[in-house]
């Protein structure tokens, strides 16, 4: 198990390197650092202020290899970026100049408070509904359920949010429509509506996917065997099919679990929750490239952690698979 984990981590290194090269290509080759500086400093920036800005952040170094005599060849943007990534140094924001590691740490808590409950509630609801649709399979109810889930996933996510905010929060005044506070029950009041909106937004596609997975299981031989030995259809579904279907579900779900830290862009922005999603939206609006770049690294690291965790979970729940 331990040696497997080590190998898994080593496997992630070249991929992370690829991500680094990809983002480097985007942010330093496709786009020139001067353009970036001009974007941040505004139209009135003089050549001096731009040069100063670039120098302060080390963006005025040669791009790949430093050919200047007397300087080490690795004193370039590429190698600096590489070194920063290797030491988990996320750098500072291009706009506010704040240390990104602190910024991300601060944003992670509100994001997790939002996405974690939404994930668990959403998962349980979707599995329950999918199982019910499988229970009534090939009836009108099942067909209607499938149609409703397709309809739910065909609505743009903003519509749910706009509706939730305008109608439920503002018109009926059930929930606060905007804002966030980190203090016990008040936090709960602020989170209830956003969390339920995330649940509703994901419900359609999740129910549809899980239903397909469970339907696949229903066709397996072990189901027929269980039916033949007289297992009731409720027990068959809730014990046999659920347990086996979970193996497929876990591989789908666990990979995305670490990414919950990144929060939800739209929801956080609409409701003014100071999480990582909101941070990214404001980074987009202010052309804060360092923050976007750091988010890309962080996102891919989290995703790779999720993939490794998926493999481990897979081995834990499925005795047929051994990690060696």
């Amino acid at each position: 198990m331990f040696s497997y984990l080590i190998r898994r981590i080593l496997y992630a290194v070249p991929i992370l390197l690829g991500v680094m090269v990809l983002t480097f290509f985007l942010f330093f080759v496709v786009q020139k650092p001067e353009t970036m500086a001009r974007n941040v400093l505004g139209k009135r920036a003089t050549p001096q202020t731009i040069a100063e800005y670039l120098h302060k952040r080390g963006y005025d170094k040669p791009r790949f290899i430093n050919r200047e005599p007397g300087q080490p060849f690795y004193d370039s943007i590429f190698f600096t970026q590489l070194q920063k990534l290797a030491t988990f140094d996320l750098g500072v924001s291009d706009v506010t100049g704040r240390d990104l590691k602190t910024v991300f740490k601060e944003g992670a808590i509100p994001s997790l408070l939002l996405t974690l409950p939404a994930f668990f509630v959403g998962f349980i609801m979707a599995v329950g509904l999918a199982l019910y649709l499988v229970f009534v399979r090939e009836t009108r109810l099942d067909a209607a359920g499938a149609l409703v889930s397709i309809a739910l996933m065909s609505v743009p996510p903003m519509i749910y949010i706009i509706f939730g905010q305008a109608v439920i929060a503002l018109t009926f005044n059930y929930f606060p429509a905007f804002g966030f506070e980190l203090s016990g029950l008040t936090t709960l009041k602020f989170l209830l509506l956003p969390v339920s909106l995330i649940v509703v937004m994901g419900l359609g596609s999740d129910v549809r996917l899980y239903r397909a997975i469970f339907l696949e299981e229903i066709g397996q031989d072990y189901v027929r065997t269980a039916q033949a030995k007289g297992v009731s259809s409720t027990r068959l579904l809730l014990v046999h099919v659920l347990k086996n279907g979970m193996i497929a579900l876990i591989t789908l779900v666990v990979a995305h679990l670490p990414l919950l830290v990144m929060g939800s862009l739209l929801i956080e922005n609409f409701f003014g929750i100071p999480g990582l999603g909101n941070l990214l939206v404001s980074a987009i609006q202010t052309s804060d490239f360092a923050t976007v770049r750091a988010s890309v690294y962080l996102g891919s690291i989290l995703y790779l952690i999720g993939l490794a965790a998926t493999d481990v979970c897979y081995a834990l729940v499925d005795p047929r698979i051994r990690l060696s």
Partner: protein
Amino acid sequence: MSGFFDQLWVQNALLFLGFGLFAALIVSGSRNERWQRAGRYLRGDRTGMVSGAIIAIYLLVGALETLQFPYQNGTVSVIGWFFRNVPIESTYSAPLAATTLSTSDPQPLKGRHLLGTDALGKDTFAQTIRACRTALILGGFTSAIYIPLGTLLGILAGYYRRWVDDIIQYVYSVVASVPEILLLVAIIIVLEKGLGTMSIALGTTGWVGLCRLIRGETMRQSERPYVAAARALGQSHWRIITRHLLPNVMHLVLINFVLGFSGLVLAEATLTYLGVGSPIGTASWGIMIDGARSELSREPVVWWNLTAATFALFGLVLSLNLFGDALRRAFDPKRG
């Protein structure tokens, strides 16, 4: 480069080229026995036929809005020509209202508007219809990027395996490891904002899923006796790929294209909301929905732009999803 694409005849030619290519693919596909069987099944599938017809209407409207001709010192699209007599007002007006939307100083309108007008006084109904063009162009360009890329790389990886497969797998693992929305945003903010950039970004992230799917299916197919037979007959790799493997994975490409299209239309709305989508001034559902943020807090509430855009977008995405599902059922060998 952009000057070339700004020319009238180039845009019109591209439109016909796109539709021609799509028609050619369908016609060549329909020679395949599996496609004929699926076609017969699809004809009996009422949901599939209705949703297919609705998609065709959207595409036709989008094409007519893209097709432009010279008109009175400028150019006008076919749809624009139909709406040429619809007057432009000064600001918002409610559906079928006689005055502009204002509690203190309502001005008389130049005409009646079925769904009201937007902030710039443009007719909401016309704008909603014209937005089909944005959806069509975005879907068309993006698919033109990611479908050939994903299909080709998937087949190459699945057929040659070994180091070719290793390289392709590495590349798509890298792209897939970045959360999609982050990569989209990163690509769009370093390039110039616009429909073309959005297509490039969505194409860059979109090919991964298709490539993975085609790779798996190609691996399965190349184990089959017909590929071994083609090899034994001494056919070249290229011929095996184009004549034997490609026709047998094309149905997956078609299903992926239809379902992917619905994702693209939704992505346009989300990206526009995040400020990296359609440029201001284009007729797009994303912009109309984005505008609702300020419109809903006005007094009286401006609800018609949001409602019109939502229904138009929902109609297209729902039809695409339902049609994609119908296609999947039609091509499923295990059905019935």
